[in-house]
């Protein structure tokens, strides 16, 4: 695996009036990797993507696409784009939209191959405006990858898709990555990042909070989830040492803690009738919540 960098932000900053959207972000996308960009709303994900696509200009720092200014068409001929909201012409048929987008690229993927990979064979003759939200997303994905891009930007690609469509799109994304295409993915679904990403960058308040593999990110948060059926009082447990939170949901206790062994021992002592015990490492979701919560707390303290 070569470590060639295909896109980069260097100390990039962007302000909108009094609001600082990006505050000195360094970000590098390597050839062939899938990089997930996570963060709560307003963290700077869209601005980062906008800078890399040349839609927004940085106030300070630099944005580069294949070593070029992102506004250069030579650089953009090597990327594919799926934006969060793009109302494509409703009266054009899917096949016409695909052929139009293919015409922009020097060496596009074959028409039939794109159709098969995106799973839109059944939609080609239909006007775009008559498609459901999930079908429109599939078409937008086809348009994003029809140019045989070396770098693909996917901004919230699976919003509005059912589970089956989402699984299919994931498979297509994996196939593209296997071909050597790099992907920058923003998503609200952490399981999506968990399923696809080799590297995760978490943004918060316009800064990079964390960067690393999914495992590394998860390890940063030492929380463990405990779930069990018990009559013990959740509020009392929440006051135990090392317990971060304890709640009751549908007759089950849910406890988050950094020291699972100690808490489980005490639970079993306190309630011999306790059953259905489950202990699980925190997922990306917990890690993510923890990371962004820490930053928010720091900000308030500052």
């Amino acid at each position, binding site marked *: 695996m*070569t470590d*060639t960098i*295909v896109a980069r932000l260097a100390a990039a900053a962007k302000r909108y009036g009094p609001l600082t959207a990006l505050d000195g972000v360094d970000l590098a996308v390597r*050839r*062939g990797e899938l990089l997930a960009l996570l963060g709560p709303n307003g963290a700077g994900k869209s601005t980062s993507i906008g800078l890399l*696509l*040349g*839609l927004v200009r940085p106030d300070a720092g630099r944005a580069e696409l*294949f*070593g*070029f200014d992102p506004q250069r*068409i*030579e*650089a*953009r*001929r*090597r*990327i594919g*784009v799926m*934006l*969060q*909201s*793009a*109302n*494509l*012409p*409703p*009266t*054009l048929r899917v096949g*016409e*939209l695909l*052929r*139009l*987008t293919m*015409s*922009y*690229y*020097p*060496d596009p993927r074959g028409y039939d191959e794109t159709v098969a990979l995106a799973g839109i064979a059944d939609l080609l003759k239909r*006007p775009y405006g008559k498609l459901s939200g999930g079908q429109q997303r599939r078409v937008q994905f086809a348009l994003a990858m029809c*140019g045989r891009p*070396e770098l693909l*930007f996917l901004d919230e690609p699976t919003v509005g898709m059912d589970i089956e469509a989402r699984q299919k799109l994931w498979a297509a994304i994996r196939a593209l990555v296997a071909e*050597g295409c790099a992907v920058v993915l923003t998503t609200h679904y952490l399981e999506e990042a968990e399923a696809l990403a080799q590297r995760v960058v978490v943004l918060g308040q316009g800064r990079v909070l964390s960067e690393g593999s999914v495992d590394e990110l998860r390890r940063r948060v030492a929380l463990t989830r405990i779930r069990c059926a018990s009559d013990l009082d959740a509020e009392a447990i929440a006051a135990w040492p090392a317990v971060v939170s304890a709640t009751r949901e549908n007759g089950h206790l849910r406890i988050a803690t950094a020291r699972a062994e100690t808490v489980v021992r005490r639970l079993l002592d306190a309630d011999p009738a306790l059953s259905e015990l489950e202990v699980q490492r925190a997922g990306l979701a917990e890690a993510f919540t923890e990371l962004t919560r820490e930053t928010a707390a720091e900000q308030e303290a500052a």
Partner: protein
Amino acid sequence: MDTVAVVAASPAATPAMPPRRVLGAYLAEARSECLRYLRAPGFMLPVTLFSTVFYLMFGVLPNHPGSDAARYMLASYTAFGVMGPGLFGFGVSLAIERDGGLLTLKRALPMPPGAYLIGKMVMAMVTATVVVILLLALGLGFGGVSLDPPHMLAMLAIGPFGVLPFCALGMFVGTLIKGQGAPVLLQLVYLPMAFLSGLWLPLSMLPKFLQQIAPAWPSYHLDQLALSAVGMRSGPLLPHVLALLAFAVVFLLLAARRLRRYG
């Protein structure tokens, strides 16, 4: 895998886009713009029916024996009809596409520079030609107007040329306002301007002051060209052609400046 990595390491070695494919992209964009609007009755019907129905009601159906009313109105409704595709084709679609994210997507995609605007321009020129043909058919077929071939050709040329300043004006309005407010604003430009240029009532029937400021409106100059094309006016054409070109350039520059600044 390795050869691909080498390409990325030297940014100069980007995959070349052959000129034929670049030209193909311009053509594909223009074709798509034409197709999508020809299929959109919400655009085509008002743009083509406005002028033709008015002409039918006021110019063709009332019998004006021995008068040149049908011929005179063929010119003024041609000017009126040609304004529409420019103002609405450009203005409304730009305003809506700026709002709906399509323009953003197009800017991110490797669409060749200007293909988006050239595509819309071609669409407006085609639609304007359709409007002129419809009006000619009404005038010649039912209004008792007769035109010799050179005058017919002049009329046909008015469509694609005359629409250009209104494309630029529509584009400028489209950069001022986003989304569904644009049609209203454009009507507020379209109808008063047509009236003030003498397209509904002859200028000689309007107050003197309005007659004096009429050359300030591009539609006035378009009407003068149309009157020449139907043989109801003699006099130099060049000043009016230049005036229309000047309007087109000024509004194009204003719109381009706003698009660059605000997107």
